[in-house]
Each structure stands twice: as C-alpha cells, then as structure tokens.
C-alpha cells in the first residue's frame, strides 16, 4: 500500500520548498 512521499526533516523540506518554489504542507499527527 503506497502513501504520500512525506519528508520528516522540516529544515531540509524548507530548502526543498525554496528550490521548487512551493509551499510546505505540514501534517502534525498522533503516532499512537
């Protein structure tokens, strides 16, 4: 079963967002 290609490191995701000129989509979740 697939899922979205989530990133886990926000700082690296911000760098990626700058390079790709996209916003970030953060999902705060309960790991249970």
């Amino acid at each position, binding site marked *: 079963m697939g899922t979205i*290609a989530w990133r886990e490191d926000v700082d690296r995701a911000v760098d990626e967002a700058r390079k790709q000129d996209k916003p970030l989509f953060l999902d705060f*979740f309960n790991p249970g």
Partner: protein
Amino acid sequence: MDAVTYPHENVIHEPETKVIPVRIPFDSPLSKEFVAKWTPNLLWVDTERKTHHRVIGFLPPEELTPAVSLGVGKTFLDTGALDRALGVLKEVIDSHPMSHAAPEAVYFSGVCRYKQTHEAAPLKEAYEKIQAGYSNTEWAKRSAPYRLL
C-alpha cells in the same frame, strides 16, 4: 488519515505536485512553533515558516486534493503571487465544485481579483457565485456584505 485518505490512489501523488509534504509527530518541539495542539493538524506554510492556512480534523480522500490546492492558493495570495493563487483556486472551483473547499476558493478568488484590479466587482461576483452554488455554507455569510457593493 493514515488508514483511509493518504493511501488512496487518487491522493498519493497529487499533493507533491503543489507542495512539499512533511509529517511531524505532535509531540515534536515543532508543535509549539506551529501551534499544533490537536491532530490531525494540517498547515500550509511558506519558506519563511509562516502559516497561511490550517485544517484541524479528518479529511476524506475526495476532500484532500481540493484542500491542498485551497491552502496553496491562500499561501500564494498572502505572499502576493496573485496570478498563481488564481490558478490553483480555479482548479478547486472547476475540478472539485462539490468539495468543502470550493466556496472558500470562490471567496478568495474574488479577493485576489479585487487586489489585482482595486475594483469592487470581483467581490460582488464572488458573493453572487457563492449565493448561487453554496448558499448553505459559512462563506455565504462571510461574503454577505459584498451584496451591497
């Protein structure tokens, strides 16, 4: 969201066309920075780490894609990228007209066009479109003052 929405075949690849998706456990120190006190807590954030849209609670698969586009559109609006905002908001309206995100997309499309033209007409058009298609939503009430324009 993990069991139903994120694995859905219509959802898996769509968000990454518009956003960089990041998952963060709610007990992370980042919960304080982003004021995430309940889960699911979905945020649309710019590269300065400023939040422009938030959804708290479960979204079914058919609502996630329009919700992502709406959040992207609001982020573009807030950061002054009005043409890009209008593009993604139009996607919500045209491709997901029955979604919960659609009336909000109509409202903020009117806001974008107002900011581009400084004319009142787009706001009144947004009101009329919401009245015609989404009269039972909160956006009918939020746009109600524009009937006087």
